[in-house]
């Protein structure tokens, strides 16, 4: 029973990683850049939702929508102000800028909300489900997180496969210059990618803090790094890959904490990543890309 319970906790934690990883993977697939500020957009989303429910007494659903709107605007702003001017620069310059934006967001949050941790009240106001004489308890947060993760993945896959904007995204990800020649507005496509990624970050932030209710300006950084790992693990650039990577990472983390050692859990997670990358350098579901010389 402990095994089942650990498995469910792992999937639930992994689903949060997966939703965050989707943001990393989409931006990487289309703009070919690692947006290290993604983890901090999560934190902003959680703070917006916290303020909406605690200070303005808005209903939870409204607070999530509000957080999504603020994060979408923030994501587009970050892209326009910090990354767009560097579109032709080296990838290293963009990477450093992303790290800069990450610290900027953390420090702004520090100024606005202060550094005292706040307790996030869960937006999911449902009871837990108990099975087998209370031996197995599944929290409402776990169920909602997993469902949200599945719905988001299906919606994103449909969007990139069927919609016009989705097709444009795939075209830009394959060949930016050719896409531009075909009449696709590359800048708009990248902005939309950032908008979607940031809206997902808001949802991830709310779900993360509902499950682990401590909110402070550094809340997003560690889950952000783990989710980035998950994206690489699953194959960066691939949407199902991010999902698979996230959930596997969550399960490995919880299982190694339970059955091997709580002290070595993080080391084991990253060791698994190294092994996977040695065997399959593009990640589990990553496509093999032949670089044209």
């Amino acid at each position, binding site marked *: 029973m*402990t095994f089942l*319970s*650990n498995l469910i*906790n792992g999937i639930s*934690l992994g689903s949060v990683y997966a939703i965050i990883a989707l943001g990393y993977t989409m931006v990487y697939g289309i703009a070919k850049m690692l947006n290290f500020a993604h983890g901090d957009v999560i934190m902003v989303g959680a703070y917006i939702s*916290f303020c909406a429910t*605690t200070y303005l007494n808005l209903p939870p659903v409204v607070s999530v929508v509000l957080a999504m709107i603020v994060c979408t605007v923030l994501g587009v702003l970050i892209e326009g102000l910090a990354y767009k001017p560097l579109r032709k620069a080296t990838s290293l310059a963009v990477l450093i800028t992303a790290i800069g934006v990450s610290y900027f967001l953390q420090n702004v949050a*520090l100024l606005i909300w*202060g*550094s*005292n*941790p*706040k*307790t*996030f*009240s869960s937006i999911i106001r449902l009871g*837990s489900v*108990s099975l087998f004489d*209370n031996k197995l*308890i599944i*929290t409402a*947060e776990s169920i909602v997180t997993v469902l949200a993760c599945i719905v988001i993945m299906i919606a994103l896959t449909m969007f990139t496969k069927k919609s016009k904007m989705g097709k444009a995204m795939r075209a830009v990800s394959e060949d930016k210059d050719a896409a531009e020649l075909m009449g696709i507005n590359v800048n708009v496509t990248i902005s939309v990618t950032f908008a979607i990624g940031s809206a997902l970050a808001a949802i991830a932030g709310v779900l993360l803090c509902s*499950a*682990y*209710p*401590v909110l*402070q300006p550094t809340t997003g950084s*560690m*889950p952000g790094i783990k989710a980035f790992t998950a994206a690489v693990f699953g194959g960066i650039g691939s949407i199902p890959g991010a999902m698979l990577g996230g959930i596997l990472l969550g399960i490995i*983390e*919880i*299982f190694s*904490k*339970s059955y091997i050692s*709580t*002290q070595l*859990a*993080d080391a084991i997670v990253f060791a698994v990543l190294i092994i996977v990358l040695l065997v399959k350098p593009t990640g589990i579901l990553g496509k093999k890309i032949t670089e044209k010389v």
Partner: protein
Amino acid sequence: MRKFTKLTCLVLAVAVLAVCLVGCGNQAGTSSSAGSADAIKIGGIGPITGAAAIYGQAVRNGAQIAVDEINAKGDVKFELRFEDDENDAEKAVNAYNTLKDWGMQVSLGTVTTQPCVAVSSEVDADGIFALTPSASSTDVIEGKDNMFQMCFTDPNQGVASAKYISSQNLGDKIAVIYNNSDAYSTGIYQKFQSEADKLGLNIVCVKTFTDDSANDFTAQLNEIKAADADLVFLPIYYTPASLILAQADKMQYTPKFFGVDGMDGILTLENFDVSLAEGVMLLTPFTADATDESTKKFVETYKSKHNEVPNQFAADGYDCVMAIYEACKKQGITADMKADEIGTKLVECFTSEDFKIDGLTGLGMTWEKTGEVSKEPKGMVINNGAYVGMD
């Protein structure tokens, strides 16, 4: 012409330099003479912002109340300046240097353990007397003659917790969750474990976490639940403790929780559902609901100034300043003395056998040569969102 310009420049440069030096000399002169006319300068360092902010703010407020009371009496004058270190060792050393430039004569060390270990070696090198309100590791005082503690050392907390649990028969199966990336938490756990072995306590499960993995405790709690523990010992700070309480509640797992002084502060965490902490026990030297005169007076003053019930850290801060005050009176220390001179005299006083302090955090407190304090801890339990003494 060119030579002439060079010469003029040289002369001007020398003149400017001389004026500067004189200026500096004057400044230093005025500040020290102002010091002698005014007050003994006490410097405090602690987290005013950051995850451990509640401790630093409480110590600062408590110490300020003591300073105000002493200045109202008028026989010795104190001036307190408190610097933020965000619970970061590097920032604490910077804060210490800032205070030294300001002319600090007595130090309150720092509030939290890791920064205090860094600052204590500076204190030792400078010969400034330091009395930390709450940095509890033995690393803080080890090998330093002029570094003293107002709180229990970590080993003492671990030993006292084990003894308390054993004597009050609080649990048959005991589990522990501690932070193994933190010196404070690990220190308490190790002593707890060895004392528990001696006393024959049944420890069924020991789990750890690190600062980087202080989010998800479901795995640890699942194991502990499977081991059927009825008491969980949490020698950790209140932020991760609040997560553990919330996650245990969601799992419908309701053992007794037993914390140490790091647990103090959980009730003032913003938006925290205090019903989760109902029945949590902790060992602490100070209870705000104690009925003695000095505690009542302190609690009232603190409430009227800061609109909340003071925790143990506030009382530690208050006691530190009061102990320094008593020692200053005894040794006839005045504000015009040099910091290292004061240091030597205060060390002599604190280690002398007849120096006893009755404070808020204990009666008849004395200090060892090592810098360790000796006093008795009290058990507290959280009842209806407030601390209540257990016995």
